[in-house]
């Protein structure tokens, strides 16, 4: 958090590329075109905001990148992997090792303590207990939640829950952090805290961040690039980096 930004080092190579991506849902008689021919490129180390009103297809786009969903046609490449061609098993491995996800509703498992939630991905990765404990501790320390390790999610505030979710997303050292309205359930102050943390991950750990939001102000303050979607189509793609460089400190006030 004190080190200088390391963005340029990782920038340049393509992290995510979608080609003519379609995702259609059938709902009774009608077909919903959630993602409708999107082609885009996100470079490694970028902080990108996916913007749009509800139903614009931004969450569907994120799910396709996360490998939670498969495209109807077209393809998504993440670090040269064609997600459409991966088996279910390989997709699970991809989600486990390459992607970290944060959600609007935190999505912690209520029956588990904070530590257990955070180390859950390590169980799927079959990491042994001793190493799991130290990694979870480290991860929780990073999000400032060490004091709450043995609490259950219901005993935490919204901000704390989202921090726990961030710690969980971080634990497998993924290259990609996908956030779906991460501040949607938080007040603006806590939201800012969370976003600062996400930006730190982007800068210090070199993680590529794709954040879905409908708050343009939030995107303008944190993202280097803003991609606008409407009715499943890409309508605008603009650079936001100049304002970021100067507006960081002022934006926090």
């Amino acid at each position, binding site marked *: 958090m004190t080190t200088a930004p390391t963005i340029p080092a990782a920038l340049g190579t393509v992290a995510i590329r979608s080609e003519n991506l379609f995702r259609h849902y059938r709902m009774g008689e009608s077909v919903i075109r959630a993602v409708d021919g999107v082609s885009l490129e996100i470079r490694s180390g970028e902080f990108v905001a996916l913007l749009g009103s509800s139903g614009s297809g931004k969450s569907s786009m994120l799910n396709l990148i996360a490998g*939670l969903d498969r495209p109807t046609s077209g393809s998504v490449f993440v670090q040269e992997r064609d997600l459409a061609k991966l088996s279910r*098993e390989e997709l*699970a491995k991809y*989600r*486990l090792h390459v992607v970290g*996800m944060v*959600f609007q509703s935190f999505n912690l*498992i209520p029956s588990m303590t904070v530590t257990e939630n955070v180390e*859950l991905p390590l169980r*799927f990765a079959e990491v042994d207990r001793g190493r799991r404990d130290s990694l979870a501790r480290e991860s929780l320390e990073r999000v400032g939640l060490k004091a709450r390790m043995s609490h259950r999610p219901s005993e935490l505030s919204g901000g704390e829950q989202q921090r726990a979710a961030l710690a969980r997303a971080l634990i497998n050292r993924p290259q990609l952090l996908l956030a779906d309205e991460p501040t949607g359930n938080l007040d603006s102050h806590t939201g800012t805290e969370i976003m600062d943390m996400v930006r730190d991950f982007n800068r210090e750990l070199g993680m590529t961040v794709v954040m879905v939001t409908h708050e343009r102000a939030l995107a303008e303050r944190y993202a280097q690039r803003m991609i606008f979607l409407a009715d499943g189509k890409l309508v605008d793609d603009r650079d936001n980096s100049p304002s970021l460089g100067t507006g960081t400190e002022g934006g926090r006030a």
Partner: protein
Amino acid sequence: MNFPDLTELALRNLRESLLRNSLTTVGISVGVASLVAMLSLGTGLQQMLSRRLEKSGLFDTVFVSSRRDLRSGRQEERSGPTPGESRVLDEAARMEMEHLPNVKEVFPDIRFSTELQFEDKPHLTMISALPLSAKSNDSFDGMQGSFFSSDTAPEVILQKSFAEELVGKTPPLGEPEPSVVELAKPLLGKALTMRYAQRGESADQPQAQGPENKENEPAGASYSVVSREQKLKIVGILDLDPESMRGPMRARVFLPTRFAENLHVMQLVDLREISRAASKEPVYSSISVRVKDPSRIQGVEDAIKKMGFTTFSILDASRSLQQVFRVLYAFLGIFGSLALIVASIGIVNTLVMAILERRREIGIMKAIGASDGDVKKLFFAEAGAMGIAGGIIGVVLGWAIGQVINFGTNVYLKSQSIPPEHFWAVPLWLVAFAIGFACFVSLISGLYPAGRAAKLDPVQALRYE
């Protein structure tokens, strides 16, 4: 996910909806209990029956007779050496049999009909000798008095019907019989006088004395018959009839074997065998050979046949009995399993419910990297854990049910003055089998829910709050 993690998570999930999972587990344990109860009843009955049969002395005994004894008319059953090779059933043959492997004891069947005097009244009856080992025979359950004090004691045990005759209390048909306790009072410790025909020791001075002399001397043989009297002490009254299967030949009065032998009573068979007997040694009409283990009976029987004697055992009867028990097992097992199958439907139900409840949780796990296999294994582990727990509780429950039923039945048997029985057995293999089977059935039941959970679409699962 590795096994310890899987177990830990599965148990945690089971604890989360404790009531429902406990009820499902109870269902399994009731199923297992019924299976265990059924099969342990089968095992117990079989053990009880073979215990009884072993005690009856039928299954471990080979009856040996001389081939020359044609009286039985069972000539067609004989196989092996021709009659020319047949031997006399004498002391030498007896010694030889005693030295065969797996033979526990050899004793002659001494059986004769004679007159017993009690309080100056004569009673004609069949007398037979009992070896001391017969004491363990379950015919002696409920005997009044005691068994012979030694193999040579001049003591006698009476069967109940003969005791009735002695005290003059033979009840008319249809009326309740006097109890053996009642009969024992006037008889125990009293003396009987037995009058019998003794085969003479000296072979060169043939004498014929007494009314029991049935002499019909074959050419060339020389022996004497002496009328004798012997005082006997009544030591026991039998309630049951140890020779019920012998029909009209059955004895109602019993003497110790060695004592009976020393009497040298003239037996029917002597008349025919005596001519062949080279010495003064006794000749037996038949001999009973007891083996150490009923499973060895075939070998002993074959060995005796080779010696040139006719043998008979109830081995084949015991074989068909095992067949009957196999069928009984199958039936009991099928009925016992029914409850377990019903319980397994409970597992399916519980796990399908759990999928609905934990939809979101499954979605989360998949989103953070759980594979289909991980989710499947987790549900499988939950089903397996319920199966093992249900199996263990069920075995204990089944055992307890057995104990209660056994106890209850014995209370009833006691009220009917029948000695108690232990007809309930839970062998170790049954415990292992029941738990294993419960686990197996649970895993089978877990197949469908686990598959369904694994196929859950994470996007759908995470969509709803």
